[in-house]
């Protein structure tokens, strides 16, 4: 388990070192902080996606959720001049609600996560575009967002707040997932929902909660992104971001079959993807290859992981050969203890016909 994260971390270091050697600008403080910011932005919702993937589901609706929540958020602040704490609350509640609806459809009505969230992808984007009649929402002049803007896009001693937020959220979710009862249930549900239900776990609630958390984190991300770009174009804001999140989670060791993955892995996966994109620009690789590089690294990463696991299994097989020997003797020993001679009849239930 931990080995996977170690490998990913190592890969990250190696890639960074090589890129830094080619172009030292890569390791400049500014660039590192820029990357930290982006890792923060993309990491927050990747965490939610990771939880959903651990339940064996998937959330394809994140990008569209950003668009819908984003236009509402900006509209609340600019058009309706709502105080920012209320607007923030509204967006978070919005995210939780959308996640809740999806969770409901998936757990109660037993629909497939892929379909439910695909429909979410279509519907939320459509709603965002209809609501704005396809016009971009942005902070034109004023300081409508006030303090919130500073919080969301500010930094503490240079470290972007988005990154700090990611770390805090990762710690909280890390405890939740890896230490708490809920986390245990989440893995159990992801691995075998039926057995979990037969153990008295309210699997529906456990799964729905993952979607709700993902929705809530999408709300947080929306706010971060809105203040990163200062505007929301309903037709393109967040387009394809769910794929980033899925890619990050998968790179980080989550299996789409459910029941596998870790918070650290997801964060590292996000970091790797962002480093790759940055590297493409810094090394002057044609921009068009950006996606191709990403795709290739995911492919190789997953492939390598498969190979390593296969090797581990093969090693275990060999070790097994060594191990069975003592087992046999053990059984023989035990057998030896039982007196052979006693021909005591194994008793059939005497009182039957």
């Amino acid at each position: 388990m931990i080995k996977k994260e170690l490998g990913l971390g190592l890969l990250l270091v190696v890639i960074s070192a090589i890129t830094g050697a080619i172009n030292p600008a890569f390791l400049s403080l500014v660039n590192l902080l820029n990357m930290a910011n982006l890792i923060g932005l993309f990491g927050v919702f990747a965490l939610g996606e990771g939880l959903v993937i651990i339940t064996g589901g998937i959330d394809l609706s994140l990008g569209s959720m950003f668009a819908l929540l984003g236009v509402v958020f900006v509209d609340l602040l600019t058009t309706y001049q709502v105080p920012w704490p209320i607007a923030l609350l509204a967006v978070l509640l919005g995210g939780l609600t959308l996640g809740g609806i999806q969770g409901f459809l998936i757990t109660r009505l037993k629909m497939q996560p892929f379909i439910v969230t695909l429909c979410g992808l279509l519907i939320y984007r459509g709603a965002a575009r209809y609501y704005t009649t396809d016009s971009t929402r942005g902070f034109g002049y004023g300081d409508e967002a006030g303090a919130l803007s500073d919080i969301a896009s500010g930094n503490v001693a240079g470290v972007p707040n988005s990154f700090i937020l990611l770390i805090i959220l990762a710690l909280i979710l890390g405890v939740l997932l890896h230490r708490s009862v809920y986390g245990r249930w989440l893995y159990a549900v992801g691995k075998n929902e039926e057995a979990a239900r037969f153990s008295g776990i309210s699997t529906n609630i456990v799964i729905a909660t993952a979607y709700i958390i993902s929705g809530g984190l999408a709300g947080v991300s929306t706010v971060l992104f809105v203040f990163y770009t200062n505007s929301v174009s309903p037709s393109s804001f967040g387009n394809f971001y769910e794929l980033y999140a899925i890619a990050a989670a998968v790179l980080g060791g989550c299996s789409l079959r459910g029941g596998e993955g870790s918070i650290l892995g997801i964060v590292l996966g996000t970091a790797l993807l962002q480093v790759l994109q940055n590297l493409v620009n810094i090394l002057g690789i044609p921009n068009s290859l950006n996606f191709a590089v990403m795709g290739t690294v995911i492919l190789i990463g997953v492939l390598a992981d498969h190979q390593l696991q296969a090797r581990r299994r093969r090693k275990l097989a060999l070790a097994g050969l060594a191990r069975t020997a003592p087992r046999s003797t053990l059984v023989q020993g035990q057998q030896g203890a039982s007196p052979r001679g006693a021909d005591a009849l194994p008793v059939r239930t005497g009182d039957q016909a």
Partner: protein
Amino acid sequence: AQQKKTIALVTNVAADFWTIAGRGLEKAQKEHPDYNIELIVTNDGTAAGQRRELDDLLVRGVAGISISVDDASHATEVLNKVAAKTVLITTDSDAPQSKRLAYIGTDNVAAGRQAGEEIKKALPNGGKIALFVGTMDADNARERVQGIKEAIAGTKVELVDVFTDQVDSAKAKANMENVLVKYPDIALLSGLWSYETPLIYDAVKAAGKAGKVKIVGFDEDQRTLRGVSDGTIESTVVQQPYEFGYLSATNIIKTLNGDKSWIPEGGKLIVPTKVISKSNVADFTANLKDLLKK
């Protein structure tokens, strides 16, 4: 409403630009209440999507279509089919090989040259510049880049690269941040599409390089205009989408009434682009606000 003749303006993507054009349509609508004037926003920004819109409009029996052609010169055949049944003009993005009646819009190469001149003005001693655009396979992107290249040819202004972002704002901003890191001596950044200039403005400010790294932009995003007025942005080259909308509608109506005298020689009715700099930004902003007020 079925009896009224319908005129439609078909956009290439969903963007604010077209909201302003829509205002021009509204003005035309007011002047010609006996027509039904619509703005049709193409959905997925793909050529196939636009073709579908055209087919459906023909089925609805519209009288005139003004279209910003996606994938420009290649949709000839479809456009000819449309031209045979309705009054067809192009706007914003042309299809010169087709049988469209005329083109109403910007000369993007000229707009690029205009921006190039602004860049030269901002960098009298030359320097490195970088351009940002959504995708390079859009004609206006290519033409603007071409115009800028023409203008800066032979000077000490050096174009390091054109960065694309697939119309993803976050990606665009990350690109800008990366350029500022990679080229510490970059002198000027220019965003070719409307959402990019404000992002450059943000990125440059956040990097603490406001004033040091100059900005020349396109289009009239609110924050672009704010940047122009506070001096962070040198100037921005604006088109007049309002005119696109208004002229499209009124000229189609003229044609429907048998008047083709508005069509200039060569079939291109160029609505000139304007340079907005600190000197005229206040007027322009006021004007725009007026326009956008419902």
